[in-house]
């Protein structure tokens, strides 16, 4: 545990140092980077060695403010969720070296690095917190530091709005968490996590629902996801990479943790998680398909992946509840591995989108095109990330999804509700997989391939060196994990050890399966290489020419005739119409020689629409009647405080 705190200490120093030397712009950035890397390497080595040894969970306690104890514990679940924290954070910071390159904003950059370090440290603390007070503190620290990271470009009104929205969701979610913690405290009379399992069964369900809502608002479960598509585009790209790749997983960590603490094997928990997962997964990917803003699309795709992870957890819980061991095992293992994999490819994709934004100044797919030639490294890495996130072999995304599928299939022997749930999960996974492929062929095919649709895209050039380096590293690891999944599956396997509900299962089946997939993946790669060589041979001494694209007889094509993201996705989005309201504004053509015609179509978010209509508007209406409390007179405000203290002294 001491090494872990050393890592946290180094990371915090990495955050504080830039504040003192912000005038030396490059020195500041590189020193922060070095310290962060050092801290994370220390943390990572500690976590990995802990996971590979079958040691006991390490714990540490500190007294704080006389009455509270700060309590930390490193068990395998925490350790597993710490891997992405320590792995992605330094890489994203390295990426930011060429991303934040305005020396005149050095103070702001220093502050960004400070908040970044606080975020990394607080995420590590969330994953190791072992009582209610510690958890709440770390959780709030995480929400606040990420809020400041989101509002980096605070001059833009859009960014401030996104920041406030995120703030409201973070705090609203925290309120649900506190309600859950309050319920626990009222039954156990202790802040400790150890006694949570002792509360009565019916309270457990309530605690779980409250915590699920609270953690769900962080993770981005439908309909609590609406801050994601606003906050991610507003934040700088290295921040969106870490927030989407790592931070929202803390919500998943919370759900896993509360589930393991409650220690209940009720089917209701599984039903909640699995149904939320299906809705989140399918709607997330349909919205992602409907969005033309690259970062918004990626944010919705994070929602989709949270859905996949929840489906995995849900399958695991169904397995636990109905006593099918293999199902429980594969479900949880798939979910865990997908947490890790998603951290890699989602941060890669956000960095790719960030590089494009940095060089072209636009996030809209409909303005891009042809970037593969102008930004070859970014384009190739983005392609790799896209294949991985679509869950296609031989990349890493497939492995996690495969384990979840396999777990789900094991549950098909059940009867009644569990059977229906698993069948629906399999169908949802298939639908999500298909739509994700459609979504990311759109991203790659329209933004990186074809011809540039705007001047900015035509003039783009390759991103800075550190940005390229990080993207190549991440893309390579996507392929590497896909071809050699065994050690990584083993990691997920070890991570689940302290999830004591699952119990010890036989790793034999697991490893044979993973080895078979690995073997097939290598075989496939070999086959592709073989066909490529054959293709080369077929072209030896052949006439190969270049010419314009065949326009089916039309000789004056322009780049504006290309399919756009909107037209590509429209029929698919249309299919899900009642759940995905699309608004179309079309001026129509009335004359024989039509004049200026406009056509606009926008996909709206159902949750956003109805939360605004059903919750915010009535709430504002009633709260408006209390406006007289806010009158702006400072002496009366002090009076409120005095009154409140007096009232508290009387009643408590």
């Amino acid at each position: 545990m001491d090494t872990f705190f050393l890592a946290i200490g180094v990371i915090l120093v990495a955050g504080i140092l830039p504040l003192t030397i912000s005038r030396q712009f490059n020195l500041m950035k590189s020193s922060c980077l070095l310290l962060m890397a050092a801290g994370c390497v220390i943390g990572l080595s500690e976590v990995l060695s802990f996971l590979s040894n079958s040691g006991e969970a390490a714990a540490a306690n500190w007294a704080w403010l006389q009455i509270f104890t700060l309590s930390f514990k490193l068990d395998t679940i925490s350790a597993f969720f710490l891997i992405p924290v320590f792995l992605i954070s330094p890489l994203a910071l390295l990426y930011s070296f060429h991303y934040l390159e305005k020396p005149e904003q050095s103070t702001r950059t220093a502050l960004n690095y400070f908040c970044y370090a606080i975020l990394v440290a607080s995420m590590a603390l969330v994953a190791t917190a072992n009582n209610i007070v510690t958890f709440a503190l770390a959780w709030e620290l995480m929400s606040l530091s990420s809020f400041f990271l989101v509002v980096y470009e605070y001059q833009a009104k859009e960014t401030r709005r996104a920041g406030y929205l995120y703030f409201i969701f973070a705090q609203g979610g925290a309120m649900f968490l506190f309600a859950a913690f309050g319920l626990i405290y009222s039954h156990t009379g202790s802040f400790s996590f150890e006694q949570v399992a002792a509360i009565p069964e019916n309270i457990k369900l309530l605690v779980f629902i409250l915590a699920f809502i609270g953690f769900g608002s962080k993770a981005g479960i439908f309909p609590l996801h609406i801050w994601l598509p606003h906050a991610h585009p507003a934040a700088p790209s290295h921040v969106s990479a870490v927030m989407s790749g790592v931070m929202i997983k803390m919500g998943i960590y919370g759900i896993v943790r509360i589930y393991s603490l409650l220690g209940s094997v009720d089917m209701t928990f599984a039903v909640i998680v699995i149904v939320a997962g299906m809705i989140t997964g399918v709607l997330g990917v349909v919205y992602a398909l409907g969005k033309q803003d690259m970062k918004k699309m990626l944010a919705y795709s994070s929602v989709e992946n949270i859905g996949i992870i929840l489906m995995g957890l849900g399958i695991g819980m169904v397995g636990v509840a109905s006593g099918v061991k293999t199902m429980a095992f594969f479900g949880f293992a798939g979910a865990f591995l997908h947490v890790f994999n998603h951290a890699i490819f989602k941060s890669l994709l956000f960095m790719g989108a960030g590089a494009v934004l940095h060089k072209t100044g636009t996030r809209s797919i409909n303005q891009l095109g042809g970037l593969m030639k102008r930004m070859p490294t970014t384009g190739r890495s983005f392609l790799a990330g896209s294949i991985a996130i679509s869950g296609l072999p031989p990349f890493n995304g497939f492995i996690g999804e495969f384990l979840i599928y396999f777990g789900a299939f094991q549950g098909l022997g059940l009867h009644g509700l569990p059977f229906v749930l698993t069948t629906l999960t399999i169908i949802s996974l298939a639908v999500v997989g298909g739509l994700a492929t459609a979504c990311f062929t759109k991203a790659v095919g329209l933004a990186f391939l074809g011809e540039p649709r705007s001047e900015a895209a035509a003039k783009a050039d390759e991103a800075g060196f550190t940005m390229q380096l990080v993207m190549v590293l991440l893309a390579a690891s996507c392929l590497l994990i896909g071809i050699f999944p065994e050690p990584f599956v083993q990691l997920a396997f070890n991570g689940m050890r302290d999830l004591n509900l699952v119990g010890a299962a036989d790793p034999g089946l697991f490893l044979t399966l993973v080895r078979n997939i690995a073997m097939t993946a290598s075989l496939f790669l070999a086959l592709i290489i073989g066909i490529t060589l054959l293709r080369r041979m077929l072209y030896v001494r052949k006439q190969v020419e270049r010419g314009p694209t065949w326009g089916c007889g039309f000789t004056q094509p322009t780049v504006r005739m290309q399919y756009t993201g909107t037209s590509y996705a429209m029929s698919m989005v249309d299919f899900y119409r009642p759940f995905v309201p699309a608004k179309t504004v079309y001026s129509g053509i009335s004359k024989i020689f039509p004049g200026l015609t406009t056509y606009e179509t926008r996909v709206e978010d159902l949750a956003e629409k109805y939360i605004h209509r059903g919750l915010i508007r009535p709430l504002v209406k009633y709260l408006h009647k209390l406006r007289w409390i806010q009158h702006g007179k400072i002496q009366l405000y002090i009076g409120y405080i005095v009154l409140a203290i007096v009232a508290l002294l009387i009643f408590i």
Partner: protein
Amino acid sequence: MESIISFGIAMLAAPLFPGVILKMKAFWAGKKGPPLLIKYYTFFKLLKKGSVYSNSTTFVFKMGPTVSLGAAIMALLFFPLGGTAPILAFEGDVILIFYMLALGRFFTICAALDTASPFEGMGAAREAYYSTLAEATVFVILVLFYRLSGALSFAEFFSGPAPITVMGPAGALLLLVIVSLFMVLLTENSRVPVDDPATHLELTMIHEVMILDHSGPDLALIELGAFYKLFFYAAFITHILHPLQYGAPWVNGLVFYGIMALIYAAVGLTESIMARFRMNLVPKFILTSFALVFFATILTMGVIK
């Protein structure tokens, strides 16, 4: 060894069968039709040619043919052909295979979008759309097969001790599966009534329009991949129709290729008596296949105790 020979025969024979479709269509149209070996002739003709590449394209365009062919070959490697066990098999291979085919589609779509052609974009959008629906049907079929056999591998489905077949105890359910699998075959392989590869107007095509810019050996590889994919789906239906357990490998092989020819003939017959659907009817067509197998799966809740 038997498996490898059988696989080799399948690899060589796959281009023959689309000829059967053409013969069938010609028969119903009262024409003589092209020779049965037409697809071999075109294949070798294409191999001899050079290529013209669009100025817009990148390396992704050239990966389209390679990956789609590779994925289709992978599918056949895991499939029991002509009564022999597949070359490779493991528990869970079916999921891997359908995801491999999806990878092939990913690159075909990207290659189409790489040309910057509006027509190819249109084809790509349709291909992506319809395949998301067809994928759901395929996975419900897998759910049903798992219920029937307790396995997740083609080898276990068809060459295990209790193969899945209409002759078996759950035969009535499998009739529904055959119909829906036939519909998936038509969808995934761009046949009438979903797509018309022979139409004269690019605007109405799906798959053919996506490969407009491919020429020469590249086109030959795409065609070969398409033959293998069609072969895979047809073999899938063949196995459900009839279990291949005669003992002697040559009898098995003969029965297998006989039924295969019948299925291809059925495709040809469908093409002769039907016109291509309007685009907005295609999703309904695919959803019908989904509904059929979903219904069959629900029925297993009563059948299998």
